[in-house]
């Protein structure tokens, strides 16, 4: 919590709601979905978190991830690009999905980029 709120913040007690940004740490608990470096450069395009209810300290969650989509893009200032969308689900002890996260990462190769053309 200190990373987001600054030092000296009181942690929630057992069973109390926890801030949603705990997902950033929990995502790291899943098997990391290391994408192959298909193209020379990469850029984070977007990321998001969704919650069906507040998460609570002490509850046990099961994390699963998948590569949800890959799309190609040609042209623009990034040249040739591949967009990878990965999604992670967080299920509680009853098996209900309680939170989701997603991110879109672009790998690109500017070798064929055209100057002055918007992305």
């Amino acid at each position: 919590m200190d990373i987001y709120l600054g030092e000296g913040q009181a942690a929630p007690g057992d069973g109390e709601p926890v801030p949603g940004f705990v997902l950033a740490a929990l995502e790291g608990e899943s098997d990391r979905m290391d994408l192959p470096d298909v193209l020379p450069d990469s850029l984070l395009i977007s990321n998001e978190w969704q919650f069906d209810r507040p998460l609570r300290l002490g509850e046990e969650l099961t994390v699963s991830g998948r590569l949800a989509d890959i799309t190609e893009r040609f042209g623009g200032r990034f040249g040739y690009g591949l967009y990878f969308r990965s999604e992670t689900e967080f299920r509680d002890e009853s098996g209900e999905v309680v939170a989701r996260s997603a991110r879109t990462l672009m790998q690109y190769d500017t070798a064929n980029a055209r100057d002055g053309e918007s992305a």
Partner: protein
Amino acid sequence: MSVSADSVREGDAITPLQLTPDLRQVIRFCGMTWNFPAFFYDIEAARAQGMPGTLVPGPLKLGLIYRAVAEWLGDAGFVRHVRAAHRRPDITNRPMTILGQIARVYEEAGRRRADIDVTIQNEQGEPSVRGFAVVEFFH
């Protein structure tokens, strides 16, 4: 002033949050997520990418947007959804401001919810992140 489901109106602004993420904060975030691209902590690696300084990770900025919305909301509800579209890099030790404006207030699944347009603005006043949040009120 505390927020409530009845008091929120379309066009209202959330409380702006001004922050200056520093290198220590970024390194701790990298450790928490176990993700260590050099341009987050090594200024020479950042300069080699054409950046004037080390970068603030995008996922950290998503969490800071979450914080801004949650602090404005207080005990009135919870954040259902937050999304960040990254437009330009933010550099450590430079101030940024998180701004938000209520775009829509509505009922869904028997609950009162609000959509919020969110922006992170850098010290030049340029948007580095555009995003949105959805909050759900408890009552």
